[in-house]
């Protein structure tokens, strides 16, 4: 198994070579290069190509144009639409989905999402109710209804696992991903970037502590860690506000050292045996604790820095509606000091979203500052952001954000980070709009917020998929409903944390399973929308 690279294939004594690829044209060029250089080299090999998740005529056409289509003995598709990331999390990992849908009018990823949902329904039963908000959500629902008609008769009769499906467009809530996530997992992602549930961390903190080592053999290679709920400790702290993580870690440390101390009390052979049998588990727990203590230290270094504090203050001011209508000093200083462009863009976009667009003068000022400081080529990026609605001039002179904020209670002043009572803990004050919509849908229903829904972009709708009488669920009292929530265009870890928090509420009544086109954060999101012409 090798990653796709240009030029020659890595040497290996094999007869068959299989390419697993996304159906993207630029990848076809690389493959063609591989095949051609391989052909020149002599002994013929058999090539096969598997498109994930679907075959594409365009790609095959490209291969044909490049003269290598005939070299492939098999051209098939591997319809892997939704990839499970955790017990309650599925992602299509399609980076371009947001850009394709909102900038380029290419709905391929929506089609794949609908297909993925059909597969899910084939496995876990027809979902009786579909709710949605947004243009893309509407389209996915339409495709699903259409596909259902295509598949009828062959559907297997399975008791439905999901009660509801909620389809949400990312552009209904452009705000949330722009804000800095403040959960443990969210911060790891913001600072180091979690890729396919792995994170690469600076190795210094993970060096084995040996005395007299003098720090000579510090590892230079990044420390790679897998992060998911299979790790007991991580499952416990991943969704907590970072400020609540420290106390958990120190409590855990005490428990573990106490457990190790037990060995002094073990007197009889039986007791020792019992102690030894627990050792592997304890050691794993100790290792896990050590890792997360190191990560927490790394993060703490960042979060206690002045700049982080300043940035967060500005973000929170914007989200609570303070001074969103004029040029912000901090942003100005960031530009003047040439902080990372993505950071600047995130802040400017956040301000724009929190003000339902910026005054033309303010907008032009920011844009000019950015172009002069970072280069005129970024005019393309700015244009993309405007097209996506992240950055826009205020039209009609009305700022809708305060209405939305108040009705949906997006800003909560009394946040309890240690023992949260509301989802706003994930951003230390700001309750993610998307999750609030989900929460209000389950109780008391969207009818109560019709007005706000009309302000948010795209239609909202409800569809029913009738079930045969035999499959209708008779709910036991106290049994939770299960809602599958699909974020079209990406979801952040903080939003996931908020949904998990709702699932765990004792009187919540709804459990959430989350699906998305891509696990993302503000940085990766903006990055995908940027265009670099050279």
């Amino acid at each position: 198994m090798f990653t796709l690279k240009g030029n020659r294939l890595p040497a290996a004594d094999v007869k068959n070579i299989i390419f697993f690829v996304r159906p993207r044209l630029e990848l076809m060029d690389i493959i063609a290069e591989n095949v051609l250089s391989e052909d020149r080299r002599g002994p013929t090999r058999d090539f096969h190509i598997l498109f994930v998740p679907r075959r594409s005529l365009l790609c095959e056409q490209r291969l044909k144009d490049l003269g290598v289509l005939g070299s492939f003995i098999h051209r098939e598709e591997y319809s892997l639409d939704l990839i499970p990331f955790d017990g309650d999390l599925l992602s299509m990992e399609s980076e371009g989905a947001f850009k394709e849908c909102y900038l380029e009018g290419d709905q391929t990823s929506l089609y794949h999402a609908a297909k993925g949902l059909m597969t899910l329904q084939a496995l876990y039963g027809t979902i009786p109710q579909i709710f949605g908000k947004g243009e893309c959500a509407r389209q996915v629902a339409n495709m699903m209804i259409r596909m259902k008609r295509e598949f009828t008769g062959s559907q297997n009769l399975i008791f439905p696992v999901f009660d509801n499906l909620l389809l949400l467009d990312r552009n209904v809530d452009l705000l949330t991903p722009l804000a800095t996530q403040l959960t443990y997992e969210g911060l790891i992602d913001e600072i180091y970037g979690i890729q396919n549930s792995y994170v690469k961390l600076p190795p210094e903190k993970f060096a084995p502590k040996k005395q007299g080592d003098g720090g000579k053999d510090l590892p230079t290679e990044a420390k790679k860690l897998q992060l998911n709920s299979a790790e007991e400790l991580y499952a416990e702290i991943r969704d907590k506000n970072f400020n609540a993580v420290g106390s958990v870690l120190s409590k855990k440390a005490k428990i573990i050292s106490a457990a190790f101390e037990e060995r002094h009390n073990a007197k009889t052979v039986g007791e020792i045996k019992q102690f030894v049998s627990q050792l592997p588990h304890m050691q794993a727990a100790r290792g896990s604790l050590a890792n997360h203590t190191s990560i927490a230290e790394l993060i703490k270094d960042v979060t206690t820095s002045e700049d982080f504090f300043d940035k967060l203050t500005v973000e929170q001011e914007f989200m609570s509606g303070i001074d969103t209508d004029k040029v912000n000093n901090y942003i100005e200083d960031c530009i003047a000091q040439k902080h990372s462009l993505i950071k600047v863009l995130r802040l400017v976009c956040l301000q724009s979203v929190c003000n339902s667009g910026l005054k033309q003068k303010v907008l032009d000022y920011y844009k000019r500052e950015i172009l002069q400081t970072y280069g005129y080529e970024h005019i393309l990026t700015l244009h993309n952001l405007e097209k996506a609605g992240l950055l826009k001039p205020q039209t009609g002179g009305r700022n809708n954000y305060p209405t939305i904020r108040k009705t949906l209670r997006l800003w909560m002043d009394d946040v309890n980070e240690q023992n949260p009572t509301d989802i706003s803990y994930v951003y230390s004050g700001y309750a993610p709009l998307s999750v609030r919509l989900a929460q209000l849908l389950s109780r008391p229903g969207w009818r109560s917020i019709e007005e706000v829904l009309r302000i948010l972009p795209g239609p909202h709708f409800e569809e029913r998929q009738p079930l045969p009488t035999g499959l209708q669920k008779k709910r036991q009292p106290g049994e939770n409903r299960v809602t599958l929530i699909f974020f079209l265009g990406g979801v952040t870890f903080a939003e996931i944390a908020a949904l998990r928090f709702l699932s765990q509420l004792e009187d919540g009544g709804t459990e959430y399973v989350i699906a998305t086109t891509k696990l993302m954060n503000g940085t990766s999101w903006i990055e995908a929308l940027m265009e670099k012409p050279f």
Partner: protein
Amino acid sequence: MDCYTANWNPLGDSAFYRKYELYSMDWDLKEELRDCLVAAAPYGGPIALLRNPWRKEKAASVRPVLDIYSASGMPLASLLWKSGPVVSLGWSAEEELLCVQEDGAVLVYGLHGDFRRHFSMGNEVLQNRVLDARIFHTEFGSGVAILTGAHRFTLSANVGDLKLRRMPEVPGLQSAPSCWTTLCQDRVAHILLAVGPDLYLLDHAACSSVTPPGLAPGVSSFLQMAVSFTYRHLALFTDTGYIWMGTASLKEKLCEFNCNIRAPPKQMVWCSRPRSKERAVVVAWERRLMVVGDAPESIQFVLDEDSYLVPELDGVRIFSRSTHEFLHEVPAASEEIFKIASMAPGALLLEAQKEYEKESQKADEYLREIQELGQLTQAVQQCIEAAGHEHQPDMQKSLLRAASFGKCFLDRFPPDSFVHMCQDLRVLNAVRDYHIGIPLTYSQYKQLTIQVLLDRLVLRRLYPLAIQICEYLRLPEVQGVSRILAHWACYKVQQKDVSDEDVARAINQKLGDTPGVSYSDIAARAYGCGRTELAIKLLEYEPRSGEQVPLLLKMKRSKLALSKAIESGDTDLVFTVLLHLKNELNRGDFFMTLRNQPMALSLYRQFCKHQELETLKDLYNQDDNHQELGSFHIRASYAAEERIEGRVAALQTAADAFYKAKNEFAAKATEDQMRLLRLQRRLEDELGGEFLDLSLHDTVTTLILGGHNKRAEQLARDFRIPDKRLWWLKLTALADLEDWEELEKFSKSKKSPIGYLPFVEICMKQHNKYEAKKYASRVGPEQKVKALLLVGDVAQAADVAIEHRSEAELSLVLSHCTGATDGATADKIQRARAQAQKK
């Protein structure tokens, strides 16, 4: 009921054979069977008769008639034979009639006499003629074997996938073999033929002579040979009236029999049942039928009429002008139950149930007897099984009733077998009805499977019955009802006398949204019949765009195909149509079509972005999309142009486009960029170094770093860089240069618009505490504490904080106090705090 076993004939000690009537034949045959070519399909299939064959007299004036009947003699088709002389008829596994002509052509007809296709058995046959032909069935399908006038064999093992195999020559063969047959061993078809006293086996490589083991001496010729239904057994009839029965591999003899009749039999077929140990062969002469097995005596029947034998999986069908009968070995379960004086559990249970109906206490006695032996389960099973093998519904019912009765006394008898048997028998009785005329036995039905049976009903256009069966058996719609409706619809579109509207409406009425019906298949059939309009109407009902689109493209309805593809949301499908359209239409029409389909347009734009940049420009031009045109030229200024003049020109085009798009800002910015580019070029020329493509900010920084302060100032003025940013910029650049003198001068040039804390910070960043302290004193009061702490003057910071009486500042200072050196300061703060609290 006493004489229920009256038609049972024992063969040897262990087996009984019985013959019962299936139908009295409904046909009104004018000719004798012996004057016709006859072919009857297995599994109760149709019968084909070709009257007036050519071999009789050369009466060319009368055209022969080909008749097709159901097994009950209901006419299905009748047509005048207009082609050449036919040597042999046979049915394929799909119930297609294969007619092998003398010239080697094989004509294929459907069940209803509709001509399907034809193929030839090779050119060689044209001269030599076909002497004899056999149609046989293998696991691959149906095969044809012919014997030519040159005494050579040619065969094809599967007429669906025609591959002719010419078999090797038989050495010294001068005349036609006395008899021959096809064998099928190890998935390969062979031919066994008899020439005088010798037997030869032909496979595709060689001809080998074979000898059956234990063959009685004195044979000078083989008159007849028969292979069993499963190709496992072979029987040979010799001119001495001797019958040899053994395995088809000719390795083992099973038994032999001498019937002392030397006349060649008309037909000889195997009569055995799957999984039975008994082997028997049925031999037919003009007026005599004989069942021969491993027993000294044979069973003999007299034939009143000219009869024809059809071998089946589990017996033999015999039909004549007036009747159609079935001869088979009595199955074990039936034998157990009905044998005279049988004490088998099933027999007792049947008896018990009868007594129960008579309200006699004997019922209890019988039941007890079975229960005492612990055989009730077995008894019920026996009755169920036997019911399956009965032909008469009355007898089926009695047996099932007995089973049901016995079941009541069992605790946990799984109901499946009983329920399934009831269902199967209902289906069987329905298809056995003489109107339908498919006399399947239970074993045949199980071998055939319900799917194939449904296919056969559909083939006979018995749609309602097929649907009823599907509904009765609750088959999934896709396998059952939908499929049948689709077949019906395909048949319907071929009715050319009905108008398109009526057909489409009729089909939609019946099919509606029945899940799993492929309207596109039906439409394809309609298109195949030349009814394009009907096909389009039908396609409207097709829910799967993936199916609609290719057919629409085939019918050259590309625009319709495009909108269907868009509806589906399947972008790849849209591309398929787009590329098709692109080739089909001229550019103008193509663009116009795109214009009306925004989704297709944006997809095509994506395509162009990767493949045809020029087309992309044309598309934007057509739509007057000046904003995108501007962006396009911006991109082009980076990608396509190397020279500065070219780049500026591209940018100028972009700026013009932005003006047209009323995007003043972008236009101005682009003009600024052009200005900067030219300037950078000049700077490179005059100062050397690299300036091109640096941002304005970086250009100014580079100038400062290179000591060109004047030029930097000028540039900043030209581009109206705001003061604040310029201060930051200069500050950073000078600190990078560590030009402290210049920095100080700069700081004093006027009052800093960014305050003096940044000066402190930047000096500390360069580890110059000395310089930092200079600025710390100038920092405004609100940031003073911070600045003092930065330069490490904790004591003074504490003083300022105390002066400010700011709790926040106090704790900030306190957090900077390190134990040893700042002890005094810390105390001071604590005191100040305490005092503050007192007040």
